[in-house]
């Protein structure tokens, strides 16, 4: 049976958007390899990757191989994964909380991760331990918010969840401030500040093997539940009257988004704006249908962070903190959207 009743033009338009976003991501990745102190051209990049896969010699300078496989490669992949994760989590949360101004850290995942990581720095632990503590801190914070919200009955569950997230986030922010105050100003404070501003400079291939599966595990339920997540953007009672167990689906989405965000924050530090701006931007392109919104958000988020990270490591003699740069790029973008596209929501 032909799909004559599915609007042809909207299906075509969506394929076009996906193709454009995927091509933009590929272009940004190639540009990221070609930019820096040792520029890697596309042909060299492909030869090195081919020899890495096949185990055959590539006949190029070994410095170039080190740059691709040890330094720039992991960093670009990290940017792709973190950007995709933050954008996907943000898109899911904006649907879940029925608000386009929500970001993935509304339930305190970033604040929790920050407390975990800073505690690790404070206790002079190693890199892996710090990352693990950041991951655990993010999960613990959201878990606490969820338990507190469940304990409060007789109110709109969504509102209680957001309020608990804001309040607990403020408390965790105070913990961060306290630890900064007590930290050794010569050794620990710069490391803490550096972590809070976000960076991908120290990512290596080992990080990828841990973070990538976690991100995929988070992404999978979001994709599988894409239609229920659409319905969940209606009123709770309406969603239930349409046959959706709203509370259960909401819990799955929160767990999935928290897993992804925690894993992302653990390797990159706190990077704001992506989870807020990218899904919002993607929605302007695709409309609110989550089955279209999620893939486009993932592609745009990945491309955006690769681009910003490339800027961060090349625009000045020192690394510009990612969190700072995303804000500098994200704020004008967001204001421009706000001014031009008010019809996007009510």
């Amino acid at each position, binding site marked *: *049976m032909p*799909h004559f*009743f*599915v*609007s042809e033009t*909207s299906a075509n338009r969506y394929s076009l958007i996906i193709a454009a976003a995927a091509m933009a991501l590929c272009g940004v990745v190639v540009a990221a390899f070609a930019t820096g102190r040792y520029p890697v051209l596309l042909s060299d990049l492909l030869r090195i990757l081919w020899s890495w896969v096949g185990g055959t010699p590539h006949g190029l300078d070994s410095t170039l191989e080190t740059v691709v496989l040890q330094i720039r490669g992991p960093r670009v992949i990290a940017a792709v994964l973190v950007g995709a994760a933050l954008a996907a989590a943000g898109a899911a949360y904006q*649907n879940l909380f*029925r*608000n*386009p101004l929500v970001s993935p850290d509304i339930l305190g995942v970033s604040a929790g991760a920050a407390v975990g990581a800073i505690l690790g720095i404070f206790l002079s632990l190693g890199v892996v331990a710090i990352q693990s503590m950041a991951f655990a801190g993010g999960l613990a914070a959201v878990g606490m918010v969820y338990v507190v919200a469940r304990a409060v009955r007789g109110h709109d569950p969504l509102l209680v969840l957001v309020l608990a997230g804001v309040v607990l986030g403020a408390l965790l922010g105070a913990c961060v401030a306290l630890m900064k105050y007590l930290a050794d100003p010569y050794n620990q404070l710069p490391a803490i500040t550096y972590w809070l501003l976000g960076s991908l400079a120290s990512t290596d291939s080992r990080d990828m093997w841990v973070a990538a599966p976690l991100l995929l595990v988070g992404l999978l339920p979001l994709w*599988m*539940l*894409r*239609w*229920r997540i*659409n*319905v969940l*953007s*209606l*009123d709770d*009672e*309406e969603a*239930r*009257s*349409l*046959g*959706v*167990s709203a509370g259960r689906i909401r819990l799955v989405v929160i767990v999935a988004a928290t897993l992804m965000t925690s894993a992302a924050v653990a390797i990159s530090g706190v990077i704001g704006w992506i989870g807020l701006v990218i899904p919002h931007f993607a*929605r302007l392109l695709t*409309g*609110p*249908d989550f*089955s279209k919104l999620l893939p486009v958000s993932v592609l745009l988020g990945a491309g955006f962070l690769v681009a910003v990270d490339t800027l961060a490591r090349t625009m000045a003699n020192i690394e510009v903190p990612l969190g700072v740069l995303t804000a500098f790029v994200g704020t004008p973008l967001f204001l421009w959207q706000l001014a031009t596209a008010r*019809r*996007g*929501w*009510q």
Partner: protein
Amino acid sequence: MKLAAQKLAYGYPERRIGNDVTFELHAGEVLCLLGPNGSGKTTLFKTLLGLLPVQGGTVMLDGQDLCTLQRDEIARLVSYVPQAHGAFFPYTVREVVLMGRTAHLGLFAAPSARDHGAALDAIRRMGIAHLADATYTRISGGERQLVLIARALAQEARMVVMDEPTANLDFGNQVRVLERIRALSADGIGVLLSTHDPDHAFLCADRVAMLHNGGLLACGVPDDVMTAAQLQHLYGVDVVVTEVALGQSKRRVCLPLGMRA
């Protein structure tokens, strides 16, 4: 197929709103619920739909106790048309109606071509095919109401509960919605609706139930139940119920008396 409430108590654990409500709704029948503001019509509806827990008595859906049914099982038996509202995101009318198919989809499934067909069919039945690709947040209140009814149709439940489907609509849209409701019952769907206008009950209802002070004041055929005395008791104002000749037939109307100079 019927929806039956037996000695139903509804409300909240700390605040009981209604008691001892007993009635039945059969497929193909329009039952109109009248009651003053705050009489608990919406709360009763939400209890019948399983959105609020039953506080006492039973609700039977197609011979099964509501309390034993899963959310999607309830949704396949009875659909809900809330009062027309804004949406949070600019979905198209087609997408909003498609959400009515959710109860027929597996947990991980997205709507198939068949679901798209059912949604478009429901849109056509409500006479709003020209709005299919319009943005739900940008159409009028009357059009939104028709979209929400189309969504309930796409749900393919034999029973529909409508919460004040004519509220906030202009005169023409009120009549149009009532006509659609009659057409639904002709197709074998049982409709339970609430309204603030007794004339709407005269226009479209097979039976009328009156909710007053947390209990059923009366339940029966409009001509028997909706007398001037009963309506005065229900709303606390003087009314007259009279007959108007319309060609060969007659129709009853309800007029308020309190406004005389």
